[in-house]
């Protein structure tokens, strides 16, 4: 168990360090997210009331697109330097690689969201009528939901042609329930109508189930030649 | 054509389309087997 933790932390540290030095992925994601926010703001001119109802959907669509951009090159670095082959022959547990990657992606996407959120608030003049601290839970649980499946399917689409198309194609249907829950929770918090507790619980269960399934099956995917 | 007949026709069209697709995709296999049998 401690090996798992150590290797995960090592993988994560390596990714964070590499990314910090080049900031390739991060800049791409941030710019893309910015574009999406601005384009959406242009296209819709909602009243304050309308804004609270639709902002949830818009935010999460923007996050979904940005996440795909990030995930598309999530394994690119590993592919370039035959790291995956090295990993296959090493005694390190496959799940450690997966967890390290997933947590890394999670932190990146979360960082982009936290930078994007103020922009959304400004462009749409948003003011939450419900308990706004709950948004942190929505962000955390929702982002993990997208990233855990996204990292897994990014690994699957590594060995396919047109992998940039395969990833969203496979990821989107699987993510639908999570996106629905996220949007519902966000809208509930913004409009202050009802409680987001059901949606948050649903997201938590979704996260647990799909993280477990991913951990169980990642070894098979890693060793798939 | 009313919706009812359209629905039934669509059903059979879809099934026939799939069978046709199978026939086209696997015809070369039959040919290959025949050629190999001759050798």
């Amino acid at each position: 168990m401690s090996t798992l933790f150590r290797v995960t932390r090592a993988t994560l540290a390596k990714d964070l360090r590499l990314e910090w030095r080049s900031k390739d992925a991060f800049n791409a994601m941030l710019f893309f997210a910015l574009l999406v926010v601005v384009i959406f703001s242009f296209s819709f001119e909602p009243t304050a009331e309308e804004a609270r109802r639709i902002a949830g959907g818009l935010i999460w669509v923007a996050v979904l697109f940005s996440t795909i951009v990030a995930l598309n090159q999530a394994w690119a670095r590993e592919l370039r330097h035959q790291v995956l082959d090295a990993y296959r022959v090493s005694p390190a547990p496959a799940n450690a690689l997966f967890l390290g990657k997933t947590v890394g992606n999670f932190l990146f996407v979360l960082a982009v969201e936290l930078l994007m959120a103020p922009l959304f608030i400004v462009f749409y003049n948003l003011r939450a009528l419900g308990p706004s601290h709950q948004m942190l839970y929505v962000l955390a649980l929702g982002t993990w939901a997208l990233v855990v499946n996204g990292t897994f399917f990014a690994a699957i689409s590594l060995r396919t042609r047109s992998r940039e198309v395969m990833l969203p194609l496979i990821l989107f249907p699987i993510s639908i329930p999570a996106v629905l829950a996220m949007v519902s929770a966000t809208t509930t918090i913004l409009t202050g109508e009802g409680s987001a507790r059901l949606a948050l619980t649903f997201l938590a269960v979704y996260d647990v189930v799909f993280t477990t399934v991913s951990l169980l099956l990642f070894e098979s995917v890693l060793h798939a030649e | 054509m009313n919706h009812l007949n359209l629905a039934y026709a669509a059903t059979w069209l879809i099934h026939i389309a799939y069978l046709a697709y199978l026939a086209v995709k696997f015809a070369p296999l039959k040919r290959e087997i025949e050629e190999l049998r001759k050798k």
Partner: protein
Amino acid sequence: MKSPLPILALLTGALLSFGLYQARVAAPTEQTMGDIQRIFYYHVPSAWVAFLCFTANVLFSIHYLVRRSAKVDALAVSTAEVGVVFCTVVLVTGPLWAKPVWGIWWTWDARLTSTLVLWLIYVSYLVLRRFSTGSQKPVLAAVLAVFGFVDVIFVYMSIRWFRTQHPQPVIGGGEGSGIHPDMLFALLANFAAFLAFALLVVWVRYRLERIRHSLDEFHALAAVRAPEEARSR
């Protein structure tokens, strides 16, 4: 070796014809909807067959992940393809029925959305198989099938709980409202007919897959042997 295929095909054809007769002639006309309701006899059995195919696919996929048998993988791809065909029928006949009866082509209720997502997942399954390079394509596809199966359960629940703003038309009027025995018979007759048809097509597809597999193996072996033949001459 005599193939049972022609006889089974004939039998299936007979069943389907009987089903068609039941659906269009023998079954009584529905009171409120009228003739259009007869789409029900094709729409519902197709849905049941599609779900059975996809369930079979998930079971074969799990079996493959444990045992790695090529035959099981052939069964997996066969059931997936036939399932997609029947699911397409469901998604096409559904709106054709809904429009005249409820005035809308589509609604995002739990059942319809789950069916659409199921279709999307299995189309992506087939695309993954098509676009996969490398010999481990069956493993990746099997993994996707497992994810998809878990997901559909979540989709159904998420729509039930998070999409209740719009009034939901009750679709599938046959359940719960006490179906007329003659209608039930027509429904079951068509279910038996389409199930037989599905089994037949799955079997044909399975055989074709096995033939292709054998041919590939043959060519691979021939390529290995060929250098030796050249040397012995």
